């Protein structure tokens, strides 16, 4: 990949800061490009782009492969990630996933405490009347994620809102999340994402 080769020569700072196994030159070069949007070390400034730092390795791998084969097709995937992932090799994907998953997660943001409390209730207990199960059942007690289930804690709130909306209308295809999100009201989405962003 052209990017990787270029930035391999550049030698990437982020890789050098990573305490885990050293990145290959290709991975380091590619990570430099990722950081253009996802921020240095995977901590994104712009809520259009999710934080990757501390994300589950297997989830990252699965998503990059889904971008690569176009099975993840929400609008932003199309605009940015299809091109970004098109020429990533499995080994580069593995290296990127390893790098981002080993970074310290972004700290939670300050959110409205009333919404955070209401969101915690949804996260912990679900909404039985709407057949919405507790989020924590899959995403973990601290929303840290598990294997291919993503970490949600500390994620940008508007990114999470956008993904729940994408699941609801099936522009991001995931049957379980479609079922879980399709009955959520805008207020409920606002509450649960406030809670998650604040973690």
């Amino acid at each position, binding site marked *: 990949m052209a*990017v*990787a*080769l*270029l930035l391999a020569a*550049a030698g990437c*700072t982020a890789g050098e800061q990573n305490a885990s196994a050293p990145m290959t030159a290709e991975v380091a070069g590619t990570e430099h490009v990722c950081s253009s949007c996802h921020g240095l070390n995977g901590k994104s400034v712009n809520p259009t782009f999710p934080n990757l730092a501390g994300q589950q390795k297997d989830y990252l791998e699965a998503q990059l492969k889904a971008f690569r084969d176009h099975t993840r097709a929400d609008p932003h995937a199309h*605009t940015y990630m*299809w091109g*970004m992932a098109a*020429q990533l090799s499995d080994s580069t994907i593995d290296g990127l996933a390893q790098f981002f998953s080993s970074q310290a997660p972004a700290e939670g943001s300050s959110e409205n405490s009333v919404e955070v409390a209401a969101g915690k209730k949804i996260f912990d207990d679900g909404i039985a009347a709407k057949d919405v199960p507790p989020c924590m059942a899959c995403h973990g007690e601290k929303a840290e994620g598990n294997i291919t289930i993503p970490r949600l804690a500390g994620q940008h709130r508007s990114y999470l809102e956008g993904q729940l909306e994408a699941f609801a209308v099936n522009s991001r295809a995931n049957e379980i999340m479609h079922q879980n999100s399709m009955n959520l009201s805008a207020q409920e989405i606002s509450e649960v994402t406030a809670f998650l962003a604040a973690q």
Partner: protein
Amino acid sequence: MNRKHIRSRSARFPAAARGRFLPLLFLIVAAVLLLAPPRAEALPSYARQTGQQCAACHNGFPELTPYGRLFKLNGYTFGGGQSDLPPIAAMVVAGYTHTEAGQSGGAAPHFGPNNNPDIETGSLFYGGAIASSLGLGAFAQVTYDNVHSDLHWDNTDLRWARATSVLGSETLFGVSLNNNPGVSDVWNSTPAWGYPYLLPELGPGVPVATVIEGHFAQQVAGLTAYTYWNRLIYAEIGGYRTLSPRTESALGIVPPGDAIKGIAPYWRLAVEPKWGRNTFEVGTFGLAASVIPGDVTGFGTDHATDVGFDVQYQFLAERDSISVQASYIMENQNLTASQGQGIATDTHNHLRSLHVKTSYYYDQTYGGTVGFFHIAGSGDPGLYGGLPSLNNSPNTTGWIGEVDYMPFNHGGPSFWPWLNVKLGVQYIYYDKFAGGVNNFDGAGRNAHDNNTLFFFAWMAF
């Protein structure tokens, strides 16, 4: 495309005439095509190289998003796309120009005084990586000006970039070899890539501009070095010198234009804080040039010092985007040589140039822009009498409004997904022109007579 295509040069430094295209230029383009690796802007070639939609790098092209700026600063080398087509792109601009009152003698040779449809320009680009592994990439443009029937090299920026770590923070180092002071810049608040991005070739245009607003475009070669620290602080310094008459001729520029004596230093400093979906930039830039007017020796040199300040704000969300750009350029002129040659009356003058604009885009598809420009300076019969200006004044003030439709910013039709099109209507309203509101030229023409309505289709493919 930038506004140098249309903005007339200062009367003090008469524009170099464009020449007809020479075979050498074909050879250069052919060489680039043949030597380039078979890989690799809203240049469609950039979209092919990165595999991304135009909207990833452009907020209503050609304005750059934060990612677009990094793409350029990293030497146009980011990849990802699967196309094996060479990094070549083309652009065509067609328009229809109406002025409130016709322009006596014709809007241009072979054109009527008013209501002129035309194919304005056609350009060919090399846009993309040259050698990704070395950090080398290019933006290079050759333009056929259909209004003036000439073919010439246009904005060109060859660059090398490398990322490393300084004080624990990512730091980019790069070098740009280019032909227009400021063309290496990545914010759209500075002249080379500033608004208006397109102006009618057949409109009256603003009659005066500072030197850094394109006066030496394509007549010089410059080498600049830049660094971008922690994606916050940008610094660039370099120098420009005039090409030899022979080289200019070979590149489709007919000498003599005004020549820089020695090397003219160029500088740029900018700070760009970011928060959420917002980016803000504030900076300064400038050029200091000793100038031999018309390359006629024996009269000494003029000296122009331009110091500019600029700001840019962008809010880029999923559907809505807002951007604001502004620049203010202060030019001080020592015109000893021009006075000696009889083309300036005073030895010292000043010129000030203010440009402000704001844009809104919806879904990177529908957009509107409002801009304001104000050029003011000391009067000089020798410099400005021939504009013509009854008051011998450069002072020109006006507004620009524009509505755009970009149907393919998220991807073109299936048969050529890299096609991008901007269809627009632009209106330029002059409060004052060449120092006057009414009868500015002494022949009864009013500033409002120059108000210009421009319908255009801007296609890149």
